[in-house]
Structures are given as C-alpha cells and as structure tokens.
C-alpha cells in the first residue's frame, strides 16, 4: 500500500510539475510548425508568472491573473513576430533578446510592486479541483481527478492542436508555412500573417505556463523562478518531433523526473542535493542526443520567408 501511495503521490506531483512545461511546449510546437523558432519562451514565461501574480493579488481572482498573463504573453510573442516575421531578423537572436527582456521586466516589475511591502504577499491562487468529487479515490483519485483546471485545459489544447494539424486546412497551411512556404504562397495563402499569428499564440501559451507556475504550483513570484523550464519546453518539442500530444507526454516525463528527484533528496540526505536537482536536465540532454538522430524538423524552420512576388 505504501508503494501505491508513493506512486500516486509521485504521479500527481509529476503532472503538477509538468504542466507549465507542457503549456509552453504546446505553444512552441505551433510556432515551430509554422517555421519560427522562439527560444525566448523562458522570458515570456517569467513575464506571465509575474503578471499573473500581480493581477491575481490586485483583482483577488486567479482567473483574472491568468487572462492578464495570456495578454502579456501574446504581446511578447508579437514583439518576436515583428522582428522575425515582419523584419526577417535572425530568430535565435531575437529569441535571446526576448529571454533577457522577460527576465528583466519581470524582476524589475516585481521589485517595483509586490516586493515593496517587505513582507510576503498573500496570493489567492488556484486550488486543485475535485472533479466529480472523486479526488479521494485511492491511487487514481489525486492523479486523474484532483488536478488544477489548467492541467485539463492544457490536455484539451494539446488534443485540439493535434487534431487541427492533422485534420483541418488551417493545419495544412501551418505545416506548409514551416516546411515549404513557397507552396502556401503560390496557393494564395499569406505566409507572414499565418506565422505572425502562430508566434503570438505561442507567446500566450508560454505565459499561461508561467502563470501556472506562480499561481497554481507556488503561490508567489520569485525572480527567475522558471529556472530553465522554457528551454526544457523547447527540448520537449524536438524530442516529440513536433507532435503536440507527444510533447505533452515528454513534458510529463520531465515532470515525473522532477518529482522523483525531490523525493530522492529526502531519501538520500547524504548526497548533495544538487545532484538530484540536475536530474531532469540530464534526462533532457540524454534524450535529445538519442532522439534528435534522424528527426525531421520543419524544413523552413528559422528561415524568414521572402515572397518572389513583386
């Protein structure tokens, strides 16, 4: 029974830890499928996390915080889109700029507002749901029915995105924009507009991931609290070969690895805890090295589109 309890707790915690990464990975999948890589989602997550806390405290409602975070993330995405899609700037460079912009904005904003009081602020954050009053079921209760609303929303979005890519013409257009934009252009589609929208949406998802971190997982903001989760999300996308559902599954793997290492820290007090903290990142590097062999990235990823039309 102890093992079952441990496993149930591990899975429930793993899902909680995976949710921010999964949300960011869903967004990054959309953007990369359309041909734009966004390495700045870490920065967008931070802004999302900060804005979510700030508005939640001010409005007293975490949903308002989430909505504000999504708007802020979309705005950050639009900055990236202006530079990479409209001005055809180097996508990696723009992404790195976005990362530091987000890091600075969120830290500075935090010091200007919430950190002023000196004492910790009460954040009325998200609580776990109790779907169908089943969260007390042994083992599967907390795993399946006792998660945050955002977890279910993330799963729904991933499934919706997978369906959209596979079964709608919009999905075909996004894949064409990432693989061979000339074909979309010749078919009368607007490659730049489509990419712009996809990058904005990816920013919104990344910010929602940040909001989850600061209003559901922890109730509060700490500078640089994402600690590389944005980059883990990017590796999820690559590892999952640009498939949104698989990206969520990979994120879950990272989340469980994270939950496991926290438990290991208490089980093995003799080992320096840093060894455990790096575990998810080691998993990421090893899996990427194994998986990236022969993986097919969108052929036009990172390449600005210039139409031959005059």
């Amino acid at each position, binding site marked *: 029974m102890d093992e079952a309890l441990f496993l149930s707790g591990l899975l429930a915690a793993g899902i909680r830890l995976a949710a921010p990464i999964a949300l960011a990975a869903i967004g990054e999948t959309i953007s990369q499928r359309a041909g734009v890589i966004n390495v700045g989602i870490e920065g967008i997550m931070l802004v999302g996390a900060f804005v979510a806390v700030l508005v939640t405290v001010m409005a007293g409602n975490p949903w308002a915080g989430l909505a504000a975070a999504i708007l802020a993330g979309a705005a950050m995405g639009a900055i990236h889109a202006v530079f990479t899609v409209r001005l055809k700037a180097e996508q990696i460079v723009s992404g790195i700029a976005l990362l530091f912009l987000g890091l600075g904005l969120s830290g500075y904003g935090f010091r200007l507002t919430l950190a002023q009081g000196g004492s910790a602020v009460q954040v009325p954050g998200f609580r776990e749901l109790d779907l169908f009053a089943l969260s007390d079921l042994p083992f599967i209760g907390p795993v399946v029915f006792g998660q945050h609303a955002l977890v279910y929303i993330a799963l729904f979005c991933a499934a919706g995105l997978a369906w959209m890519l596979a079964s*709608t013409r919009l999905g075909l257009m996004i*894949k*064409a924009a990432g693989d061979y934009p000339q074909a979309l252009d010749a078919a009368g589609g607007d490659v730049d507009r489509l990419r712009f929208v996809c990058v904005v949406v990816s920013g919104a998802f990344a910010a929602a991931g940040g909001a989850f971190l600061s209003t559901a997982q922890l109730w509060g903001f700490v500078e640089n609290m994402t600690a590389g989760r944005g980059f883990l999300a990017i590796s999820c996308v690559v590892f999952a070969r640009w498939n949104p559902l698989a990206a969520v599954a990979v994120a879950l793997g990272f989340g469980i690895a994270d939950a496991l290492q926290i438990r290991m820290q208490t089980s093995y007090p003799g080992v320096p805890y840093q060894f455990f903290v790096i575990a998810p990142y080691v998993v990421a590097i090893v899996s990427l090295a194994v998986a990236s062999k022969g993986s097919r990235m969108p052929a036009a990823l990172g390449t600005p589109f210039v139409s031959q039309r005059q």
Partner: protein
Amino acid sequence: MSGQGSAQPVVALEGVTKRFGTVVANRAIDLVVHPGEVLALVGENGAGKSTIVNMLSGLLLPDEGRILVDGEPVALTSPALSVAAGIGVVHQHFTLVPTLSGLDNIALAMPELRFGRLNRKALGIAVDATAKTLGLPFDATTRVEGLDVAQQQRIEIIKALIHKVRLLILDEPTAVLGPDDKAHLFATIRRLKAEGTSVILITHKLEDIFAVADRAVVLRNGAVVANAATCDLTPDEVVLHMVGGGDRVQARAIAAGEERVRATSVARPEIVCSITDMTLRRTNGSVAVSGLTLDLHGGEIVAVAGVDGNGQSELMRVIAGMDMPDGGAVECLGHSSTASGWTAAKLRRAGVAHIPEDRRRSGIVGEMSLARNYLLRHGERPDLVRHGLLRDGALHRLAGERMRLFGVRAPGTDERIDSLSGGNQQKFVLARELDGEPRLILAAHPSRGLDIKTIRFVHRLLEDARDAGKSVLLVSSDLDEILQLADRIVVFAGGRAFGPARRDEISRDEIGAWIAGHASVAA
C-alpha cells in the same frame, strides 16, 4: 460566353512590357490564345518566357500594356485572381509541400475550403473524378517526397485543374519526364484541347512543339520574333528564330543534332570506379534502387536514365563522397566506401569532379565572387594558396583565363556569381570542375535549363573528356541527351536497376520500356 464565337481569345496580351531595373524582360509583347488551342512558347534562356508566365499567374504586374481575359482588361495582382480568371499554372519548380500527401497538397491549393475540417473522403472523390477525366491516375495518400517527379507533376496538373481552368500553362513540363510519361502528358494535353481548354506549353524541345502544339510563338531578347502555325514551320526555322542572327548553317546543325546518333567508342579496360550490389535509400528511408552493380571505365560515358527520384541523385551523392551507400560498396580511384575516409575531399583529391544537379545548393556560393567560387575546388593548390594565405592575383588570373576558355560571360572575376545567368553559372562550374585533369566526371543533369547553344557546348565538353580517356557518369532525364552521348546506359526504375546495356545494342523503345519499369518491350 457564346455569340462571339471562337474568334474571341481566352487570354490576350497587348503591348506588354516588363522591366527589371534597366533590363527589359518583355518588350511590347502581343500574344493571343484561342479556346482549345495549344500554343508552344519557345525561346532560349532569358528570352522572357518565365516573365510572361509570372504575369499570367499573378506574380508580376506588367509595366506597360494590358492583359485581357475574354476581351476584358484585368489586373492580375495575386495568384488567387489569376485562378479566378480561369488560368492554371504548373510551374517548372513544383510548389508541393514534400511532407504532405498529394491530396493534402491539392487541399492546400483550394482557399475556398477555408480553414476548417477537411473532408478528405469527399475531396478524394472529387479529385479522383478530375484525375479520371484527365486520364491521370495518381497516388493521393503517399507523402509527395516519396513520389517520383512524374507522379509529382500529375499532382501539380490535377491541382491546377481542380478549379475551373480555361487556360493551362505548363512551364517546361517535359524536361523531367521519360518517354512513357511524356506520351501520357501529350495525351492529357490533347484531351484538354478536345474539351475546349487552351494550353500554353513552354518548352526548349523542338520535338514537343511538333508533337502537340497548334501554333508556336518564338521569343528572343524579350520580344516575339515569330508566330506561326506549327504546320507552316520546320525545326530549322524554329531554331533559326531562337538563336537569331541568320546563321542558317549553325541552326540546321543544332536542329539535326537532336536526332543524331553517334557511333560509340570502344571502352578501354581501365576501371575507375566499381559499384558492387549497392542499395540506395531516399531521404525518407524508402529504397530508391537496390542491387546495383556497375563498373565505370576510362574513356566512356555511362548514362543513368529514368524518371527523376528513382535513386539518381543518391547515386551521385554517394560517388561524390557526400553520402554513404545504404548497402553494398563502391570503390573509386583507390578509395573504398567500406573503409574509413569516404569523404568528398578525399575523392576530389583522387580525381573526381562533380557537376551537381542542384547548382545553387552544392555547386556554388551565390554571394561569393567568381574567383572565390573557383577556389572552392582548388583550395589546396599551392599556386593559389600558400601557407594558408590566399594568392589573390594568381587566383583571379587563373579564374579569368578559365572563364575565357569556357566562354563564361561576366564583367570580371570580382563579380558575385549569382549575378550571372544560369547558363553562365553552369559554364563556370564546368570550367572549375574540369580543371586539374579529373579522372571521373560526375555530371548530373548538366544541360537542364540551358539554352540550345550552351547545351551543345556542354555536350562537346563531355565528349572531349571521354575522348581524352576520362570516365564520365551522366545522369539525365532527357533521353535524347542520353542516346546522343552515352556509350553504356543504365536505367533506374521501380526500385531496381536495368542494364547496363551498350548504346549500339539497345533501342529507344527498349530503354523506354525499362524506364516504365518493364523488363522488355510490351507486344
């Protein structure tokens, strides 16, 4: 629609002029296409054919003059408007997304489907109906990258005709087809014509003009120089109009050269390259060709025929050292693919020259000067680089000398190579690759997209190389070119290799059967 009879042209260009900077691409073009008419638009590179196509497909707007559809002036400012006007275009470079299926590619080209759910079943039925009336069976479900070019072209044609099309423009459609597929395409064109659809066929080949066209319009230097029914024209006259200058003797020689059968020389025994039981896979992992065994001797031209996409590109990449074979082995000039060090650099040093099929990707660096591009192959020559330092003077002298020898037209060796026309770029690549006595020359589609004069030049170079004892491996989708040049012929089709057969022991029909994937000519 009716009332005015067939006299009303479907599409007409009136005094259309298009300039790019100071270059005049089209000069006061007058052109009419009648309903159910097949019009051949011919001319050398840079004659202005593609500019006309781009204006009709909504990619470019004319600077002067106007375009009329059904007698009404129209402004084709976007591809969508061109489609709405009933104009369908199959571009020379296909606009298919390689990772999508044929059906999905067709759906992509149908903006009227909006953004929502695709009803693939209903679309499949509609597309099949179109394909059937055209007599073009095609593979709707395989990803396009796994199909050969003939299949891809069918998807392009169906894609263009899924909308109501009254004028279909085919840009160099036969350049990539084998004889069977070519005959099939011509049958489709005739079927379209019978239904009243007009066709503009853009081509380099005299054979195509006389096979299907009703009328030929010849362009030279951006202007129409001839416009006549094909029954009133002879091949000599067409070439004469294309090359201009009234050089009747040369024109006749070029026209005759297309049908000339050359006596094959006897291969000498020295083996330059030996391929044993080789398997090659496409980038998507499917087997392109397997069980290929072939020896290349000095002093012969071995040609690989077949529809593009059956392993020809992969073969060239392997022998050039850019890829490893997926099975079997190659030995070439003392190197072996089974040992370590099967690299492009080592093979080049051993004497392999490579004229790649995708010049822009693997032949030249567009942003660099001609001189620097020359260095790409000769970066290890002590007279050009000493102690890691470039000897610019010597490099410019050598590059300039070679360019003169090969007739590369350029203002100077400092010029960026992408400012040159495709034909001149190709001559430059030949000048560079044939420098330094190579022993094996890999020539992939060496004359694709070139004009008739340049093609003759390239052919003569390859023949001279052969006569000088070099080994030449030629890949071409142009069967006439292969029949004219090759001493031995191999055909890649349907995952296997046919031959090699000696040129003088095999007929055009037999090769055609091989290209279609049959072991012998059907009764």
